[in-house]
């Protein structure tokens, strides 16, 4: 095989490989990203429609209700409450009054059906996304008041 032919084949192959990889990556990123949304943003209708997203916040104390394996609870940023339903086993570190992150979709009635509940680390740990939601809510409260 001629030298330039070989070069061309290698370069062509490389470009094709990079192109395919890039297409895969972009496509996968596009469909598999979950945005973090705060409870206030959900209440304001800013949550993505028809797409899974995550809500961070506190599990409202006293809001946990069980119905067999389905649990209902409220995720709050202390300004807005979002009711959440989840079927399955909650993680060990899930507790009322503590931070948690839920991933799922918003129903037509404004309730959130979670496919995943995340509560990680130790009991004093606040997920940064939950903390972000609380801070955000506090800030908005401060600006609205005067």
């Amino acid at each position, binding site marked *: 095989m001629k030298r330039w032919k070989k070069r061309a084949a290698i370069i062509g192959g490389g470009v094709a*490989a990079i192109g395919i990889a890039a297409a*895969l990556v972009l496509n*996968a990123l596009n469909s598999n*990203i979950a945005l973090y949304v705060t409870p206030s943003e959900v209440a304001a209708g800013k949550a993505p429609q028809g797409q899974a997203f*995550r809500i961070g916040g506190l599990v409202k104390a006293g809001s946990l209700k*069980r119905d067999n*394996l389905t649990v209902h609870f409220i995720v709050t940023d202390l300004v807005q409450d979002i009711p959440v339903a989840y079927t399955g*086993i909650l993680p060990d570190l899930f507790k009322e009054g503590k931070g948690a992150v839920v991933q799922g979709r918003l129903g037509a009635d404004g309730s959130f059906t979670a496919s995943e509940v995340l509560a990680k680390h130790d009991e004093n740990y606040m997920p940064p996304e939950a903390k972000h939601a609380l801070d955000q809510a506090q800030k908005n409260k401060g600006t609205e008041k005067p």
Partner: protein
Amino acid sequence: MIPELGHFSLILALFVALALGVLSVAGGQQGRGDWMALARPGAQALWLLTAFSFGCLIYAFYTNDFSVAYVAEHSNSKLPGIYRIAGVWGGHEGSLLLWLMMLSSWMLAVSIFSRQLPDAMVSRVLGILGLVAVGFLLFMLVTSNPFLRLSEIPADGRDLNPLLQDPGLVIHPPMLYMGYVGMAVPFAFAIAALLNGRLDAAWARWSRPWATAAWIFLTLGIALGSWWAYYELGWGGWWFWDPVENASFLPWLVGTALIHSLAVTEKRGLFRNWTIVLAITAFSLSLLGTFLVRSGVLTSVHAFASDPRRGVFILLFLSVVVGGSLTLFALRASKVRSGGAFALVSRETLLLVNNVLLATAAATVLLGTLYPLIVDALNLGKLSVGPPYFNSVFVPIMVPVLLFMVIGSYARWKNDSVAELAKKLRPVAILSVLLGCGATLLAGAWSTLVALALTLVFWIVLGSLLQIYRQFKDTVNWRSTPLSFWGMHVAHIGIAVCVVGITMVKGYETEKDVRMAVGDTVLVGGYTFRLTGIHEAAGPNYNADVGDVELSRDGRVLRTLHLEKRTYFSSTMPMTEAAIDTNLVRDVYVSLGERLEGGANPAWAMRVYHKPFVVWIWGGCLLMALGGTMAALDRRYRRRAAASAGAVAAKGAVA
């Protein structure tokens, strides 16, 4: 007193490492024998000082010295002895000390097992490793000293995170760190070769066993971590594409590319620049991984703010290592000429293709891991990249890797023909498709993905077996087969075994969340689980609810499984201890959720799994590590300097 001695020993170590780094590199560059002579004793002294310091921290943990802040944070007087020792690497400061301990151990190993290397090379390598140690020592002493005392001594410690109180944790971090840090050795060899300006086959041969050794530890460390997550986190997953896992997987992917690229550089003198880049990348990713995981950057970029000095130091150190080595590479790369040509169809090309694919895989994983951080840092919002991203990108890249892996091991160096390869591999290909599809039909419901994966499995296994058979039949004296030949095939079969586990679990696992009261049964994967009782039991530092589940199949009782929900005294944190029944072809896995109802007959949430072939995942990793060990022990790496120099000269003459 003891912690102060440990601290002092670290300070001494800093000076030794500094002297070692500067003098050995300079000595190697200028050919000064008196400075080069310092390299080996210097590395050994550094090891002694680090080991002493490490011993002091273990002592502080073992004797419950809560006046030391780090001990008070990560231990507790009720903690069993073995976990008190494991607690040493349960937090940020101690794991840095473990890092340093591993680094100096690798240096000790280089200083001992490098008799066949020229003094100047050993001197440069140890010097560069010494400079890396300087960076870490500074980082520890300035920002993360494990020996800091508290002015008010607490009555008891805060306890080790219960998740980490497990035999797996005792060995997982040391293994993983051994692998991470081990990547520093091929990195040092690469930098030393760049400084020297001679990137030849001898350099590749010297650094090959070290790269392989680091890769073995990394493989074992990742496997242990995955196994630990499987049985300890209690929810049956074995890989979550969690940033922390990715951080260890990235250097593994690049390390895998590196050991194959080194093979080409050693055998054919090709791909030298590529090998250097891989060596630099593997180590940089190890550094990035350690830092990302341990600095808390991964949970949030803003964790930098909790101790800005750490974050800044990390970025500085990373940029010095990456920037410095890439600059050196840029200066020297033009002088590196790749000798020898190779045809489009040849073992070189196939190895290069797989190398590029592995590097691409690493790049996509890196992108997915860092993407949320970048978006957050640019204030574009918060998001998470989930496992579906990684699965949908990683799997398609791995399919051609598995395909070319076999062709590469059949192809001849320099030049081969498609027709000839096809002739050799056609029976293997036909048989693997038949067996792969057949096995899928036998295993359960038809799935094209499973069939594809199992076909690739047979492709690898049959490909290797055929080559082994040929080796027996066609070689006059098969006993003289080099150990590395066996190593390669064992490791490749290990990949196949691992793929079997992943495929079968992904394709055919059953998972059920159920509400169970005493006496209830549930049927999963042909097995009947009956909850026979739930009682309370006390452990050394926790209380537990223990459930007894009777496992039976076709009316025959197999055994009773004990699953626990523990509550640790110190943190009141609940912990799920799953009960697992393992055999070669399946695991059944039961874990206890929360109590749903109290009363006379309380009901509990339970999760029951049937996971076919799941142990093959880790079995495959063990085989890979075994194969790596065989390859690294090959006799040719231990030949004396004179002999190998002669061989190189002879090779050069032939070329």
